[in-house]
């Protein structure tokens, strides 16, 4: 009989750690675009856009400003807010749908700029990408495979929007948000409630595939299209149910919340979700879309970090955040504001 016995543990950790968001930050590109400027290329008005979406202004990245550039800026801010340095980061998860390369992902270049060689991957879950990142990061920290995970949500949607399409040209903005998820003494991130509805994959979608572009000379450049009414119904009635499940999983009710940060898709969706979920008046609701537009994966950290900076919410507040978008995909969790 052999004297050598394999360890049944295979080097695994015991897990069971707790997780928290230790830092959060946002970055908005300098240039502000008004509804009047958007209407120079579409047959619409400032009033129409405000009534349908709540949006007054959005930010637009400079032509030479990339998602990697915006990610680096916001990552440094979030790491600083967490009281850490880049070398403390074990993993980079970057949520985006507007990195303009099929390959490679943006995350390794962002990690490199931060002086890191750690595991770094992109997440493609559109407007739900950031909350998928927080869920994955929290699970990694809880399992013991990472101590500090950098989660970035970043979009340069202006590169993938047709400025002459009057159904969508006014919706999107550019920007970046980031958070650090760290090992914690106490549980500060609830289980994530997440899922998909792939039967509705065309409801929000790039119109033509890259292969179509290659073979059809009539296609100039693919852009994002959206069936607004269908998305509205899904968000307000289906996603709101998942938001309620998120509260249930966390063992709390809407009345226990201090903050509600839904993805900033459309102010009408935000207000209708508040109504459907029965969010009480004392809860501070994110309405950052008014001056930031819909920034997809970046919208939740952009909203939360601004609310924190402007004193609307405080460290220690209990927040429900839920992302939802193309896929269709959704993810939500209850978190303690860092």
């Amino acid at each position, binding site marked *: 009989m052999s004297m050598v016995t394999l360890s049944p543990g295979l080097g695994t950790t015991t897990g069971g750690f707790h997780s928290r968001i230790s830092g959060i930050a946002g970055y908005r590109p300098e240039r502000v675009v008004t509804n009047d400027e958007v209407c120079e290329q579409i047959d619409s008005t400032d009033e129409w856009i405000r*009534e*349908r979406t709540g949006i007054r202004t959005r930010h637009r990245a400079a032509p030479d400003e990339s998602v990697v550039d915006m990610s680096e800026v916001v990552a440094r801010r979030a790491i600083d807010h967490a009281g850490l340095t880049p070398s403390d980061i074990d993993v980079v998860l970057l949520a985006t749908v507007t990195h303009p390369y099929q390959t490679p992902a943006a995350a390794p270049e962002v990690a490199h700029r931060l002086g890191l060689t750690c595991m770094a991957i992109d997440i493609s879950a559109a407007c739900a990408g950031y909350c998928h990142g927080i869920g994955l990061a929290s699970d990694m920290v809880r399992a013991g495979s990472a101590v500090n995970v950098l989660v970035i949500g970043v979009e340069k949607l202006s590169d993938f929007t047709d400025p002459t399409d009057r159904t969508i040209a006014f919706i999107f903005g550019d920007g970046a948000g980031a958070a650090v998820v760290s090992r914690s003494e106490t549980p500060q991130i609830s289980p994530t409630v997440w899922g998909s509805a792939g039967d509705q994959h065309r409801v929000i979608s790039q119109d033509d595939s890259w292969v179509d572009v290659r073979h059809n000379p009539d296609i100039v450049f693919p852009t994002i299209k959206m069936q*607004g*009414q*269908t998305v*509205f*119904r899904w968000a*307000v*009635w289906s996603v709101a149910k998942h938001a309620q499940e998120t509260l249930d999983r966390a063992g709390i009710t809407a009345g226990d919340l201090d903050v509600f940060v839904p993805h900033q898709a*459309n102010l009408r969706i935000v207000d209708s979700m508040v109504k459907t979920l029965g969010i009480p008046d004392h809860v501070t609701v994110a309405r950052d879309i008014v001056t930031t537009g819909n920034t997809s994966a970046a919208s939740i950290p952009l909203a939360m970090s601004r609310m924190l900076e402007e004193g609307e919410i405080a460290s220690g507040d209990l927040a429900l955040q839920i992302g939802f978008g193309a896929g269709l995909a959704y993810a939500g969790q209850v978190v303690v504001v860092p």
Partner: protein
Amino acid sequence: MAHTEQEILDGLAEIVAEETGVDTAEVTADKSFTDDLDVDSLSMMTIAVSAEEKFGAKIPDEEVKNLKTVGDAVTYIKNNQA
């Protein structure tokens, strides 16, 4: 039990009033949602989902845009009650 046309009209009037702020008496069969009742595409979706819940009729997204008048909606709901 199936709802009568009048019951559906009355119920729909309450839903439209709640969504838009118009008086229920304004919501008559001949009224256009868009032109007379100031209902836009997103409000129309809210009205459709509320009507589904109230009358147990399924109104798919592609049908919602065909409902131009209050009368169209009443007829559709009457013919598609569960």
